[in-house]
């Protein structure tokens, strides 16, 4: 096993990876931008290297700086987390060239699967069902008549998607021919900004489909297993916000079929390490390959909760050359797990990011509750990156009990200083629609289009304001217990000797 690895990421996922490393006796090297010098992942790591200015291109996307940091710290491997360079084939190649193990699939596999068109061809050859759509891409300036004809052939509504996409960026739904050109242009522009590649393509769009994905693990010895499914239908801005496992729509028989398709997809693409095969599940139980996420998913904890596996440990073992310690029959789910993503965002305002300083933080805890958190009280959620605060995950005996556990955990989660979707998520958990498991990617638009926070507890909030004014502000325990004289250092401003 590795003695030291570098984690080329930040926030909760960097901490999540370091937690398992620490258990395994692997030293961790954090990298950070100038905006993150006191970020939680920097404070937790065994070593930390500043790799550049806040702008991601100068830091977390800066391959030279990251590889230099890894070599300088004598790290043996690099874990990319999710986002940033996690699905960048060139980065995987460059790690290998620098004699660093990239904890993920080989660069060629990332490139093949990262290009939606190539991926689609691989899946078609492997007999994995794919979505009706174009097998060619569109860029600004292309002939739009051809695009319009293709959209007509697929049938509206159609989805415009960035070929190099992910994370909900560079995506547009088009309901009628008149909106097609504008949508292609906007998606292309967004893709160009986000991924440096403006190519987009068209796909059939199902109004009420579910997003169901299958976790796979593949070792370097040719063993591939699937680790059950996750339902991630509930999305805002085309980005998942609530995930669960098992999916309320997936029967045991369907689970086997989707699992086999996912394993076939992994085998056909020469996959190694942990990956996720995303499917669209139509109301008639037919399913279609969407894409392979060639990395650890944000939502991997729901799989960990129901299977009892540590997927980061699996990743490290695979990267170190170990055989998978389990076969398909060893893998079974128990109970039900749900994850809510807690972002610094404003649910009353289109979930727009709400960066800032975390003023108060009280994490929920208790039986069956896990919170993978990337901040601390006093920490900044900088404007420069994806504003995820934590992933709140619960596990209970049944879906109904897991929903109640999540609602309770959300109600006990206190974050002040930034806005969060907690009040929205509570309402989703307590809604009959969510309770019925009747999910689709249009869930929020269908059931929570005009969501406003409940007016409950308004009187309590007014009472709290009055009592807060009435009760003395304590100087703090710190000050109370502080009786010694200040040292000379404490009276200095900035100094240098």
């Amino acid at each position, binding site marked *: 096993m590795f003695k030291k690895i570098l984690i080329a990421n930040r926030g909760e996922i960097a901490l999540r990876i370091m937690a398992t490393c620490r258990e395994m006796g692997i030293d961790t090297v954090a990298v950070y931008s100038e905006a993150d010098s006191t970020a939680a992942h920097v404070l937790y790591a065994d070593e930390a290297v500043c790799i550049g200015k806040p702008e991601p291109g100068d830091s977390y996307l800066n391959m030279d700086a990251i590889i230099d940091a890894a070599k300088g710290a004598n790290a043996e491997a690099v874990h990319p987390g999710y986002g940033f360079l996690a699905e960048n084939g060139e980065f995987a190649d460059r790690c290998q060239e620098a004699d660093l193990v990239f904890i993920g699939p080989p660069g060629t596999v990332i490139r093949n699967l990262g290009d939606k068109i190539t991926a689609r061809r691989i899946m078609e050859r492997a007999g994995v069902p794919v979505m009706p759509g174009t097998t060619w891409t569109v860029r600004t300036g292309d002939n739009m008549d051809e695009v319009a004809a293709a959209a007509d052939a697929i049938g509206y509504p159609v989805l415009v998607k960035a070929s190099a996409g992910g994370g909900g*960026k560079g995506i547009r739904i088009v309901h009628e021919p008149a909106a097609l050109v504008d949508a292609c242009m*906007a998606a292309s*522009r*967004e893709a160009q*900004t*986000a991924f440096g590649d403006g190519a987009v393509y068209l796909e059939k769009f199902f109004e009420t489909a579910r997003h169901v994905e299958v976790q796979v693990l593949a070792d370097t010895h040719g063993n591939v297993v699937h680790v059950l499914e996750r339902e991630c239908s509930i999305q805002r*801005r085309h980005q998942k916000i609530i995930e669960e496992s098992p999916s309320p729509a997936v029967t045991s028989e369907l689970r086997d079929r989707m699992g086999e398709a996912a394993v076939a997809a992994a085998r056909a693409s020469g996959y190694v390490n942990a990956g996720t095969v995303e499917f669209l599940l139509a109301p008639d139980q037919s399913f279609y390959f969407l894409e392979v996420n060639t990395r650890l998913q944000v939502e991997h904890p729901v799989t960990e909760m129901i299977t009892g596996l540590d997927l980061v440990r699996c990743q490290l073992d695979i990267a170190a050359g170990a055989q998978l310690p389990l076969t398909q029959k060893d893998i079974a789910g128990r109970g039900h797990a749900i994850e809510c993503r807690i972002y610094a965002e*404003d649910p009353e*305002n*289109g979930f*727009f*990011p*709400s*960066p800032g300083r975390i*003023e*108060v933080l*009280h994490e929920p805890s208790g039986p069956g509750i896990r919170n993978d958190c990337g901040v601390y009280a006093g920490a900044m959620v900088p*404007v*420069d*990156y*994806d*504003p995820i605060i934590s992933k709140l995950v619960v596990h209970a005996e049944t879906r109904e009990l897991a929903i109640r556990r999540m*609602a309770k955990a*959300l*109600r*006990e*989660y*206190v*974050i*002040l*200083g930034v*806005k*969060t979707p*907690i*009040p929205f998520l*509570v309402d989703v958990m307590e809604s009959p629609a969510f309770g019925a498991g009747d999910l689709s990617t249009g869930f929020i638009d269908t059931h929570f289009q005009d969501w*406003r*926070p*409940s*007016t*409950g*507890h*308004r*009187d*309590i*909030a*007014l*009472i*709290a*304001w*009055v*009592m*807060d004014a*009435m*009760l*003395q*502000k*304590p100087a*703090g*325990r710190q000050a109370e217990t502080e009786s010694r004289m200040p040292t000379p250092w404490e009276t200095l401003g900035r100094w240098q000797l």
Partner: protein
Amino acid sequence: MEYNLTANGEPFTVTVSPTEGDAASNTAEAEMTIAGNRYAVAATRVEGNHLHLKVNGRGMNVYVGEGEAGRTVMVNGLMIQVADAEDAARSPQGKRRAKRGPQEVTSPTPAVVTSVLVAAGDRVAEGQGVVVVTAMKMETTLTAPYGGVVTAMNTEAGANVNPGDILVEIERDADGNEGDADDDGQ
């Protein structure tokens, strides 16, 4: 005594009769009336922002932090903005909230302008996109809050903008109804 407060923009009068307090143990008791409801309240400051309230015998934990033009109170998974009514009236944010939905073209967070979609003199319909901004890699189109004529475009592509900056000035159509029938308390 009376406090004139707003909760999420809606005005309330809170009548307070303090009954007992102890600075040393950081506890206080009071009777209050809000919109005809009577409350017997006992409160303890547990630490910093954390208060424990006993309201008509029922215990609950509330957290009071800095908010927009006042305080943000978090209780039982809800986040409620509470402010002194006069402070709230002075704050554009408070005014905006009181009217449900933006009445000005401004970015909700620090952002960079990607493109401007209209120019001074253009007629715009309510909901029409006028400026595209990007923040945290997310592109968002700011729309006209009402129909009218653009009288000034105060920004340009590439500009850094902040919440409160009025990016586009629009003269409202004569039939625009500023004080519409929205229930402000939602």
